[in-house]
């Protein structure tokens, strides 16, 4: 009788251990499945895109559809590059950053300085809601405000506005989180010395939290760099290099969309995507590196 009990307990223990092991294997397996897309996507982009990458690709504008077709027919690489997209992306990012960074950082400081106040809580909640707004809706907004209201036509400025609204809540949040990690004593020491409030902010808070702020800004930029949908509604695209913010402008993601829709140009999508991904992912990794070092 006693022996039998032991036997049952033993086999139960065994089945529990087996179940435990099975679940562990399942978790590892599913985790590998989870990360496989990133490997597959990067591999695909490099495999299909590396041939096209050259100095020309960065410095020249895209060929027209006919030139691309002739090159394809002769079995050559499609000539030209995505210079108009690169300059357009840079232009819109700079304008968006100029709009979003000051407002975002200052608002972050406001939230940090006034914890628990009604206005601060309201701003924080609204900013959180803004962060969840789909990018295409921001495109609609920038269309109504800028394309219809200011530039009377599609423009780089409209694209920048949609990207800036997208970046804003990210910068607000990261600024507040960064400042929260700074010891209060540093700020108090400065205040005790009679330093004016604005100097405390400019000379103490911002320098101390600089790397954290930078991380937030870089992450914000890398998040909006690949945005396509809002730009379709605002910047539209352009076949030439345009640096006038009131005129339609291309961007790398917009060019990918155009190439995708033109059977003759489809050969250019992989290299363009490869370039875009390389920039986005390195920005991502750099900002994570900065964040890890400061922690």
């Amino acid at each position: 009788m006693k022996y039998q009990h032991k036997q049952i307990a033993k086999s139960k223990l065994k089945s529990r251990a087996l179940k435990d092991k099975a679940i562990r294997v399942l978790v590892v397996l599913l985790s590998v499945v989870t990360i496989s897309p990133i490997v597959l996507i990067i591999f695909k982009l490099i495999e299909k895109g590396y041939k096209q990458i050259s100095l020309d690709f960065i410095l020249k504008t895209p060929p027209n559809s006919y030139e691309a077709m002739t090159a394809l027919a002769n079995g050559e690489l499609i000539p030209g590059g995505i210079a108009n997209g690169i300059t357009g992306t840079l232009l819109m990012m700079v304008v968006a950053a100029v709009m979003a960074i000051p407002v975002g950082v200052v608002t972050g400081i406001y939230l940090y300085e006034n914890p628990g106040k009604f206005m601060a809580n309201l701003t924080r909640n609204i900013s959180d809601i803004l962060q969840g707004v789909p990018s295409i809706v921001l495109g609609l907004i920038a269309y109504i405000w800028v394309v219809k209201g200011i530039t009377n036509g599609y423009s780089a400025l409209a694209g920048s506005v949609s990207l800036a609204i997208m970046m804003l809540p990210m910068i607000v949040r990261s600024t507040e989180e960064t400042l929260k990690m700074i010891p209060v004593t540093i700020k108090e020491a400065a205040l005790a010395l009679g330093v004016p409030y604005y100097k405390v902010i400019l000379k103490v808070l911002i320098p101390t939290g600089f790397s954290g702020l930078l991380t937030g800004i870089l992450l914000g930029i890398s998040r909006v760099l690949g945005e396509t949908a809002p730009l379709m509604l605002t910047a539209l695209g352009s076949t030439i290099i345009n640096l006038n913010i009131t005129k339609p402008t291309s961007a790398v993601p917009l060019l990918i969309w155009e190439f995708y829709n033109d059977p003759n140009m489809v050969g250019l999508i992989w290299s363009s995507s490869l370039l875009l991904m390389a920039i986005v992912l390195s920005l991502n990794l750099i900002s994570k590196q900065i964040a890890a070092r400061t922690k």
Partner: protein
Amino acid sequence: MNSDKITKIILLFSSFIILFVAGGMVFSLVKGAIPAFKSFGAGFVFSNTWNPTQGSENYGALPFIAGTVITSVTALLISLPLSFSASLFLGEYYRGTRMAKVLGTMVDLLAGIPSIVYGLWGFYVLRPFLVGLGLPNQGFGVFTASIILAIMIIPYATSLSNEIIMMVPNELKEAAYSLGATKSEVIFNVIVPSARSGIIAGYILSFGRALGETMAVTMLIGNANVIPDGFFSTGNTMASVIANQFGEADGLKLSSLIAIGLLLFLITGVINAAGKFIIKKLN
């Protein structure tokens, strides 16, 4: 007035800008949507016609609301086992190891891939693969779009539930271990119950992300302005119909698209607020 006061006013002013932007957004969307709601009334939300023919223009949002909900729910269900496993891998099984660091970085990188690149990969790699498995409509449709959407929300779902899993107090887990529980028993009897509401909130927020995704869905869902009648049929989401139809839109059609944008804004707003509310309550 001294400099401290001016500084405080500047700080307050910048927070007004955010409120102003948000308020302006609601105002502009509502104003833009008024013609559509005036013509079709509240029926706009429940009508399933989309007829741009001049003279007999008639627009309804139901096909797109249905498409959005179906694709997002499917995406959530597909991503659930994957992201939950990854968060257990990171937060429990291999917590703090180099392997977890590598996996965590790769999951984070998934969040960095632009939507249009997901779309390209879905179009040129996933879609032919699914056609090979016998998917109809040349592989376009709700199912294909949902798979890509699922991959896109994995990083959010993973990092949010990982954070919550890491927050489960060690004492609770140790108490269970000391009673002889195996790791999987600890996970399902201690970690999951005590982290449940946080994990649910994480998935609600990921769901909110899926609702508004545009490019990848536009490239894969097939762009048919009808209510999808199955997992493998084509359709359109609220975001994808805006992206698709915007180029040639003006007048009533433009207003209808803006109205769809307003509905999308409201739905994502409610979903996000719910998720944030649960998380706030936890803290």
